[in-house]
């Protein structure tokens, strides 16, 4: 257990970071698309329903063309990304989200699954940005 205890701060930070991230990210995607770019690392690798994209600018431009969306996060989980032989310091977080989404005027609820890798921003190490994002409609 000693090993896990030593990782306790990372585990807690990744959970808190994920909560903060999912709250603000899905609010932005539903209502403030103009701010989406700010969530991303400039080189973020994104795979959206099998379509690769690079960076928040590209993703935000893509999302501008989306019909209105209503995402509802139903569950999420987060883990720190640990690499043996490395010590201390902030690590990246992996977040997995499961939920429903409605597009446009449609009443239909689709299921989605989304996986993120969050990493400290290069300009502000206290802020976490999306380094990787994988999205699939799953229902």
């Amino acid at each position, binding site marked *: 257990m000693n*090993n*896990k205890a030593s*990782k*306790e701060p990372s*585990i*807690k930070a990744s959970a808190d970071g994920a909560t903060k991230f999912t709250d603000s990210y899905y609010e932005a995607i539903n209502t403030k698309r*103009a701010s989406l770019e700010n969530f991303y690392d400039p*080189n973020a*690798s994104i*795979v*959206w*329903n*099998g*379509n*690769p*994209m*690079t960076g928040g*600018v*590209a993703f935000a*431009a*893509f999302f*501008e*063309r*989306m*019909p209105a969306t209503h995402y509802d*996060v*139903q*569950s*999420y*989980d987060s*883990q*720190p*990304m*640990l*690499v*043996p*032989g490395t010590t201390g310091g902030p*690590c990246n977080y*992996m977040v*997995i989200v*499961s*939920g*429903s989404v409605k*597009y*446009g*005027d*449609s009443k*239909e*609820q*689709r*299921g989605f*699954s989304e*996986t993120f*890798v969050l990493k400290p921003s290069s300009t502000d190490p206290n802020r976490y940005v999306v380094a*990787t994002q*994988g999205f*699939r*409609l*799953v*229902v």
Partner: protein
Amino acid sequence: MNSTALRPQGSHGGITKRAGGRARVDRDGDLDMDGPSGGRGGRGRGNRNRGGGGGGAGARGGRSGAGSIIPTGPAAGRADLGQNKNRGIPARGPRNGTVSVSETLVEVRITGWKDSKGSAEEAIAFLERKSRIKLRKTLKQGDTIIAQVPFPKIHSILEWNDAQFASSKLRLAAPSLGRLDVTERSEAVISRANPANKDTVDTIQALEGVLANRYNPGGKFLDLSRLGEDVLLRANGFFQLSSTTSKMFPALMQVAEKKFTTAQQKRDTVHSVSLAYNNLKDVRAVTSLSVTFPDLKNLSLEGNSIEDWKMLDNWRHRFRNLEQLVLSGNPVTSQQGYVEEAYRRGLDPAIKRKIAAESAAPATVPTGPDGRPILPRRVQPRFIQDDYGVGMKFLSRFFETYDADRASLLREFYDAESLFSLSVNTSAPRTQEQQNTRQFWDEYIPKSRNLKRVSHSKGRTDRLAMGPDEIARLWGGLPATKHDLANNDAWSFDIWPVEVMSGVMGVLCTVHAEFQELNKVDGPQKIVRRSFDRSFMLRPDVLGEVKVANDMLVVRAYGGFDSWKPEDGSGSTGGGGGHEVGEAAKKSMCEQLMAQTGLRLDWATMCLSETGWNMDSAWKAFLEAKANGAIPQDAYLPGTTTTTPTAAIGVNAAGGGGGIL
């Protein structure tokens, strides 16, 4: 495996090889160009734009001959040429009182043969043999041979200008070409557009139909996006040959031109044009757009393969009244300094957004045939960027083993810092049949780490298993499962490289599929079907072995597998070949096939392009060719042994050497 690997594809040419370009001299000293496209109306020299399916022809041209998986070479094109050689151009009756352009003969003047070792007759024979075009009414006049060629063939014969002939170069010119009248030219453009359909009238009707279908009078919007997927165009035989996309567009514009007689009419009728997702590398193929609609206000080139501002500069000034140019989804937008450059050119994202909000956002969202809103990108097949097959190999081993022997997976892939957690989404959308069935989650809830529900620090820590022992305990408390690996369609996975931490590369695998579970609460007879999402982050351990850094499982009610079925039909569930498949999807399919077969990139590309970019067909073709001994050893990546996969993801990854991550 680097962070640029995910940049939009198409700019690197890694996937497709272009035919042509390099000329070589054969044993007779004859110039043998790598397939000028002969009877297809000429490739248009310097035209770098290939439309849909262009990669196919490129790969074919790039490697042909013995040992090929599928008979190589553009057979359709060859048959076409043969016919012309034997019978000349099929005669066509007059239409609307004018003589069909295909009957018009154009004069070709051939010089340069005098300096050679050959005679005029030999020069004529040489050209006819090489071009497979019959030279008519040949006449020798001093050092010039004068011949006649049907108009549709003129560009093909002119491709042989500068051809090496008996120690000299032949010069070909058609001085009268510029004097042909406009009607003839436009008709020639149209007839060239569709070599599969010889009747120009039909072609015009088909193109008129396409324009009518794609014009939205309310929005004054002509939507020419995704032409490669157009049912009407396909039904009329467009895109059967790789070169026809670039020919089709000018023809479409000619038909549009005929519809509107005055500039005012065009100005009033069409304000916006979308050319999105046409696989355009530059804008040369659609130059005719600026001629037909010079007063256009909005133009979308979204989702093409435009790499360079230079590709646009020559073109943009032609549209003097253009207010909005959408370039998102082109490689040019990933270039450094794009935002500054866009601003300088008045394409600042803020301006774009403003205009897009005003002009593009429709009150109601258009819906597809399934009644669902159409999203700007379609669902694509598995995205797999797995250079050494690490991800495929892992997933294959993991899901083959998970049901029966979880302990051996823990030994093989999990170390002291591996993490596993499970979260249950009890309210996830589900299939219609599942709507009214009660779901039992009793065996999962006590272990679920859904952070939305579990807020105490202790609970969060306790439910995160670290190291093989804790993970074994957690897995041991979960119901027994059965994953069906045989149903390929039921599995979705995307694989790509990701930085685990600064300087340490890993591989992310995101999986969506289903399992059956023996649900004890419902009694031993009851088999419950569940869907799950599972993401694995793979990383090296201190010895460089592949280990799981993160294993995150979401269990939810059964949701079926329709949602990841590729919408362009290019996936395993798709029908025949010839679909418009994006470059990125092609690259991903190549990677997947390479991982499955151990083939080198050029062979994997060829195999896929020959089978219309359909994974299943490509796999079958590979097996067939392999069984026939048609694949030479050098077609494989070094050190590869190939075994037949036993299941959907039961594939043998290419046996890459050490240093995998």
